[in-house]
């Protein structure tokens, strides 16, 4: 990050907010967690003999984690502005400028900084870091599965690795487009000076940092041996690591809700003059649809984990059949979040590629209205399909048919997205670049992911396929093959605007091919073992599946190599890549009209928009 403007901090009297940064946050979080842990150990009464599980330990763990959370957020400075507001002394202009990171250089990336561009970069680095950890875990899984009897990881640890890989990859993919690009690019693209609520923006980022620690902490307390779904009653008998998962989800859900409210408000209220809904770029629609879906979904997730934590720590029986509850309640709450959530991941990635398709085919976006209708249709239907994850749960067999209907209806708006992408490329002059290749890769991967989804949506076929490796391969095709491909394309496309430098062309091409080929090898192999009857989340399998698993493991190593090359490309290009011109792709959206480095409030004079951004071709109006 040496290219970032590095100006000395002006010396003036230091207020409290100037002392706070990530280090004070970590220190205060650790101290308060320790103090509360010690106090709880001292004063919490012992469990009754009849208590089925270790309630007291759960209470102590959860209390310490809450103390960590409160300590960390206080230490980073999240509470200063609300506290001032309550006491009637709002922040002065200088203090607001300080919060925005004015003239602070690299230090602002380690503070509670409100500038959306700083938050965008923070999200980008954070996303890459999470992918690195999640990818490492994936490699452990694949290495363990390379040989049928090759289980060199203890089953308990293996289950925990599977669960941790699942949840942190879900988090990484949720934030991979709307975090970095939704924060950095989106406000400039709509011609705004910042987000509607800059302090909420900083809050949403630092909440994720605060959430990461309980998850890590949980790894030392037995891990998350339940898979990322954390089904009850398995979760209630899981070790203390489960409390780390519960805290992690609760804090992450708050972050997502805060970001959702912020991005939605920004887009609705702060678009430039003249940017009517018909002139709003499609990426903005994708971002809003994504965070808009998260708004109803994540409170449910939050609630489901609060109840899970209460079952563990307070002996309530929400999910315990013996105490009048039901595991099916958990499954319903989980998937009411879980299905919209996959579209939270997918829609912005596809929308980002829709934004790039006109640029790299020099054609207008084909059927803007159909694109909007497709995104809206997917968003609307996706909240009505959750029980297709529960066809085989036995919860309500009579509801299988209606949920099959809603699920298969989603193929219609999904088909619209294909139409828009293919129609845009058709008869275009294709500029062969990584983003363009990513569009083709997405069409290929998403086609496979989508069609296999139709088999899974069909109840009788799902009776065979559910819970097998086939499902794992299917959702990797959609979330990774389609979603991550879109996110990497976004990185290549917007890298010049975010860092002022071009991403190394050769390295990004090598990485692109390795990731795409490795990916298809890995997950076609996984489809085959799934069809042959291998259940998912197993740490050992019968010898008949060994060939398919070996293929998958080899593919996984190719993906790893490709991703490491991409990481190297990002780091080296960020440090000393070729300096980028203002508009390297000759695109027509607003973010390309400001030069790097983008000033604090983006525009000297706010732009006025008189047409949409897709005026390619001869009709140059």
């Amino acid at each position, binding site marked *: 990050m040496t290219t970032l403007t590095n100006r000395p901090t002006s010396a003036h009297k230091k207020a409290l907010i100037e002392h706070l940064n990530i280090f004070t946050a970590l220190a205060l979080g650790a101290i308060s967690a320790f103090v509360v842990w010690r106090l709880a150990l001292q004063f919490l009464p012992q469990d009754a003999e009849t208590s089925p599980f270790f309630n007291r330990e759960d209470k102590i763990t959860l209390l310490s984690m809450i103390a960590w959370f409160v300590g960390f957020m206080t230490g980073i400075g999240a509470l200063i502005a609300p506290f001032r507001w309550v006491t009637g002394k709002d922040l002065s202009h200088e203090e607001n400028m300080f919060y925005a990171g004015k003239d602070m250089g690299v230090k602002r990336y380690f503070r509670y900084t409100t500038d959306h561009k700083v938050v965008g970069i923070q999200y980008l680095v954070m996303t890459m870091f999470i992918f690195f950890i999640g990818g490492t875990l994936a490699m452990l899984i694949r290495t363990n599965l390379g040989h049928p009897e090759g289980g060199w990881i203890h*089953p308990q640890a293996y*289950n925990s690795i599977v669960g941790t890989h699942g949840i942190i990859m879900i988090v990484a993919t949720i934030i991979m487009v709307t975090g970095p690009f939704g924060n950095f690019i989106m406000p400039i693209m709509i011609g705004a000076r910042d987000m509607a609520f800059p302090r909420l923006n900083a809050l949403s980022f630092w909440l994720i940092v605060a959430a990461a620690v309980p998850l890590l902490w949980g790894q030392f307390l037995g891990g998350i*041996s339940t*898979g990322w779904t954390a*089904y009850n009653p*398995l979760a209630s*008998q899981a070790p203390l690591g489960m409390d780390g998962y519960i805290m992690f989800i609760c804090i992450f859900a708050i972050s997502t809700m805060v970001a959702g409210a912020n991005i939605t408000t920004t887009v609705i209220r702060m678009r430039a003059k003249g940017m009517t809904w018909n002139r709003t770029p499609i990426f903005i629609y994708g971002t809003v649809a994504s965070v808009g879906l998260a708004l109803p979904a994540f409170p449910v997730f939050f609630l489901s984990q609060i109840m899970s934590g209460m079952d563990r720590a307070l002996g309530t029986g929400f999910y315990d*059949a*013996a105490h009048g509850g039901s*595991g*099916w309640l958990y499954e319903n709450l989980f998937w009411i979040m879980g299905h919209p959530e996959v579209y939270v991941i997918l829609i912005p990635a596809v929308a980002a590629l829709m934004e790039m398709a006109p640029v790299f085919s*020099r054609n207008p*976006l084909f059927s803007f*209205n159909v694109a909007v209708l497709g995104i809206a249709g997917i968003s609307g239907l996706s909240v009505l399909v959750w029980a297709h994850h529960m066809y*085989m*749960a*036995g919860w309500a067999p009579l509801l299988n048919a209606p949920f*099959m209907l809603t699920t*298969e209806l989603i*193929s*219609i708006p999904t*088909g619209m997205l294909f*139409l828009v992408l*293919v*129609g845009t*490329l*058709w*008869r*275009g*002059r*294709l*500029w062969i670049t990584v983003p363009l290749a990513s569009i*083709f890769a997405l*069409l290929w991967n998403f086609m496979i992911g989508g*069609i296999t989804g*139709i*088999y899974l*949506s*069909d*109840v*009788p*076929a799902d*009776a*065979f396929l*559910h*819970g097998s490796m086939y499902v794992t391969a299917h959702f990797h095709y959609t979330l990774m093959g389609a979603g991550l491909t879109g996110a990497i394309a976004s990185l290549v496309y917007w890298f010049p605007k975010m860092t002022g430098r071009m991403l190394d062309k050769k390295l990004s091409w090598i990485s692109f091919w390795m990731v795409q080929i490795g990916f298809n090898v890995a997950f076609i192999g996984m*489809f*085959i073992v799934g*069809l*042959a*009857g291998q259940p*998912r*989340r197993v740490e*050992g*399998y019968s010898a008949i599946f060994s060939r398919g698993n070996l293929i998958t493991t080899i593919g996984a190593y190719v993906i790893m190599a490709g991703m490491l090359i991409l990481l190297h490309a990002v780091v080296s290009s960020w440090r000393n890549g070729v300096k980028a011109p203002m508009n390297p*792709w000759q695109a027509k959206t607003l973010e390309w009209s400001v030069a790097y480095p983008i000033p604090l409030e983006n525009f000297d004079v706010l732009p006025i928009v008189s047409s949409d951004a*897709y005026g*390619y*071709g*001869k009709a140059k109006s």
Partner: protein
Amino acid sequence: MSLDTQKSPQWWKKKDVKQTFIFWLIFTPLLGYISSTIQIRSIGAPASETMAGVINLIGLFTWVAAPVAALVGAMCLTTLLSKRHYGDNPPPEAENEIRNSPRTNAIWITVSSVLCLFALVTGLVVLQKDAEAITDSAAMDINVTGQQWAWNYDYPNGARTEVLYLPVNKPVVFHITSVDVKHSFWVVQMGIKMDANPGYVTETAVTPNKIGVFDIRCAELCGLLHAYMQNKVHVVSQADYDAWVSNRAKMEAAA
């Protein structure tokens, strides 16, 4: 299925449309054949009518999806073969701007709706058959109990085993529950699966139609040894079954 413009009414005579059509004709059988071969060879031979139905459904969906995937592939390939541009600077902008094509949109949406409806109806027909099997009064009832990490089977005459024995060609209804956490009872080659929930009983039904030994696996993560929560189902002739089950009941009584 084309992208026409007002100026050229005879869109089907355009070179790239013809090229797309030829690619489509090649890709459709190719994709359908390759995918369905991979699927059928991976799945293996069915051991029940239900599983045969599942294999038919998968094959049918594959052949219905093949032309759609082939069309997208053909259009992509045609586009990719026509005008490419390499270099650091953008190419000149396209000559004929296609912003919209109401007819294409209408055709695309209609066709995808029809395909969706077709998938739904075929699925519902099979689903209805499966649902009726559960209420079959002639069927044999077997209680299945999952526990960490084994399955137990209770037969009508009171016998209890850890390996399932079934008579061939006789409908059987499984009543499934669990004593600890959620499991999922999966008889792989018979194409049935149902979760075992603690505190509740769920049902699924099948008629095995092939003598042999088949796999039962747990399909829901259930803790430490989930991967090894599997055993076999022996499908035997009615005579062998009767002999085995009465023998088994005697053993239980003696124990």
